[in-house]
C-alpha cells in the first residue's frame, strides 16, 4: 500500500510540469486556432537557458524562472511576427507544416550547438527529500509542483480579471466579433503566443531542475501536452489540471507496478494518446466555454 501511495505522490508531483506545458499549448490552440508543434521546443530552450544560467553565472533556477519567461516571451513574439502571422489564413495543413518545420529546426539546431548529452541543474535542494508519513517526495519536484500551482492561479487571474485576459477570451470566442468591438486582434495573437512560449519556457527551467535538458525532450512534451489538451476537451482550462494529474499518475503507476515498466510506460502513454484522440476529439467545444 505504501508503494501505491508513493507512486500516487510521484504522479501528482510529476503532473505539475504537464499542467504548465499544456496550459501554454491550450492557449495558443484556443486563441490562435493553431497547433504549435514547436511548443515543446520552447520548453527545451527554457531548460537549456536554466542550465546555462546556473552553470555559467550560478543563477538559482528559481531566479531563472522570470528570466526564462521574458526570454521565451520575446522569442515567441518574434516567431509569431516572422512566421505564424503569415499563415493564419492559410489551409490548416500549411500551418501544421510550418510549425512542424520550426520544431525540427530548433530541435536539430540544439543538437548541433549543445550535442545530445543530457545536462541538468545540480542545485543544492535538488537532492533533498521530504518525508511525509512514510512517503518521500523529492524537494525539486515538490517546488516544481508548488510553482506550477501558483502560476496556474496567476494565469487564471490574468485571464478572468485583466483587460488583456478578457481580450484573449473574446478573440478565442469570435475573432471577428472581438475585432468589431475594437480589440486589436493581431496584438492579442502576439501576446498570447508569447505567453504560451513563456509558460513552456518556465516549465523547461523546472524540467532541468528535476530531470535534465536534452534536445529531443521537446517532442515528448509536445505530444503529452497535446494529449492532455484533447483529454481536457478543447475549451476547458480547468480540465487541463485534471487531465495532467491523470496522465502523471497513470505514468507513475505503470512505471511502478508493471515489470520493465519504465520502458513500457512510454508505449502505454502513446496508446493513451491514441485512445484519447479517438474518443474525445469528436465534439470539439468552444474555448473557455463554461
Amino acid at each position, binding site marked *: 500500500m505504501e508503494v501505491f501511495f508513493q507512486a500516487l505522490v510521484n504522479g501528482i508531483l510529476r503532473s505539475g510540469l504537464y499542467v504548465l506545458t499544456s496550459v501554454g499549448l491550450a492557449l495558443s490552440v484556443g486563441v490562435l486556432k493553431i497547433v504549435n508543434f514547436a511548443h515543446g521546443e520552447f520548453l527545451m530552450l527554457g531548460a537549456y537557458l536554466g542550465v546555462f544560467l546556473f552553470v555559467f553565472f550560478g543563477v538559482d533556477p528559481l531566479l531563472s524562472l522570470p528570466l526564462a519567461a521574458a526570454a521565451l516571451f520575446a522569442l515567441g513574439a518574434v516567431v509569431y511576427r516572422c512566421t505564424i502571422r503569415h499563415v493564419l489564413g492559410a489551409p490548416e495543413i500549411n500551418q501544421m507544416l510550418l510549425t512542424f518545420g*520550426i520544431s*525540427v*529546426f530548433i530541435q536539430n539546431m540544439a543538437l548541433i550547438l549543445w550535442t545530445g548529452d543530457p545536462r541538468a541543474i545540480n542545485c543544492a535542494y535538488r537532492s533533498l527529500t521530504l518525508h511525509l508519513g512514510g512517503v518521500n517526495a523529492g524537494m525539486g519536484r515538490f517546488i516544481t509542483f508548488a510553482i506550477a500551482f501558483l502560476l496556474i492561479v496567476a494565469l487564471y487571474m490574468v485571464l478572468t480579471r485583466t483587460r488583456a485576459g478578457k481580450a484573449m477570451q473574446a478573440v478565442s470566442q469570435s475573432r471577428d466579433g472581438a475585432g468589431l468591438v475594437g480589440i486589436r486582434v493581431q496584438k492579442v495573437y502576439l501576446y498570447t503566443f508569447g505567453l504560451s512560449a513563456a509558460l513552456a519556457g518556465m516549465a523547461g527551467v523546472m524540467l532541468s531542475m528535476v530531470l535534465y535538458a536534452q534536445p529531443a525532450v521537446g517532442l515528448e512534451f509536445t505530444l503529452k501536452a497535446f494529449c492532455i489538451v484533447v483529454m481536457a476537451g478543447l475549451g476547458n482550462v480547468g480540465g487541463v489540471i485534471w487531465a495532467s494529474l491523470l496522465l502523471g499518475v497513470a505514468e507513475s503507476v505503470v512505471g511502478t507496478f508493471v515489470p520493465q515498466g519504465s520502458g513500457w510506460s512510454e508505449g502505454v502513454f502513446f496508446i493513451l494518446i491514441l485512445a484519447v484522440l479517438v474518443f474525445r476529439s469528436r465534439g470539439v467545444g468552444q474555448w473557455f466555454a463554461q
Partner: protein
Amino acid sequence: MVRPVRPGHVFGVLAAGFLALVPLAVDPYLLHIIILILMSAVMALSWDLLVRTGQLSLAHAGFFGLGAYASALACNLLGASWWVSFLAAGLVGGAAALGLGIITLRLHGMYFAIATLAFAEVLRTVALQAKFTGGAVGVTLPAIFGGNRLAAYYLVAAIFVLCLVVSLGLQKSRWGLAFQAIRARQAVAEVLGIDTVKTKLAAFVISSVFPSLVGAFYIHYVTYIIPYEAFSLNTSVSALVMSVFGGIYSTAGPVIGAVVLKILEEYLKSAIVYGYTVIYGLILALVILFMPNGLLGVIRRAAGSGRADQILRWVGGRKRAGASD
C-alpha cells in the same frame, strides 16, 4: 485505343530508358547514391498520395520500420525468401494502415497528425521492448542478391516505377478528382456522393504500402536496422519535406524534391554529422512561407502557358482549379 503521341509519352520513354541504362554507366558509389535517391523518391511520392486527400500523416517512419521488421523477421524466423518477405512487408504495412485508418481517419487535421505520430512512437517502443524483435540491438540480414548492387538497383527502381504508375493512375482516374474534392471541402465532397472515409482509407493504405516496401528493401540492402533508426521521426520529416519542397499534390513534385534534397543531404552529412536534419526544418518553414506550391509551382509560373507547361501538366497531373488550397 490508339492515341496520338504527346510530349508526355516521349518524356516517359526517355525517363524509362534513363532508369534502365544509367546504372551501367556509373561507378558503385554513384549507384549507391542513386539507390538512396530512389528510396527517398518513393517515400516522398507515397506520402504525397495521402496528402492529396488533405490528411497530414506523420506515420511514414512507422510504416517504414514496420516493413523493415516484417521482412527481416519473415526471413529470420520463418525462413522466407526475399520476395516473400517483401510481400509480407507490404501486407503487414497495408493491414496496419487499414487498422489505424479505421480508427483515426475520421479525425480532423491536427488530431490525425498527432495520432499518426503517436502510432510511430508506439511501434518503436514495441520494437525496443518486445522479445521477438531483438530489442535495442535490432535485426540483421544477409545482403540481398549476395550483395549485387546492380540487382538491388533494379529492384528499387521497380518499386519506384510501381509507385510512379500508381500515382499517375490515381491522378488521372476518378479517385484523383475525389481526393481533390475531399481536400477542398469534405462536406461538399460528401454531398457529391463521395464516400469520404472510404476514399481516405484507400489513399492511406496505398500510401502506407510503399514505405513498408522501402523499409523491406532498406533492411535487405543495408543488412541491419535498429529501432531508433527504423522508427526515426527523421524518416517522416524527410519524406514530407521532399514532397513539400518539390510541390505537393503532384507526381513530379515529390520526385524532384527527393532528387534535389537527397543529393544535398548526402553532401551535408559529411559536413554536419549530427543534426543535418536542421536543413529540413529550415527548408520546410521557408517553403511554406515563400513558395507554398513548391518548386513545381515556381516552374509552372515561370513557364506560363507554353509548351513546357504542357509537359509539366502531364507529369504533374491536372492543374489545380481555383485557389482551394
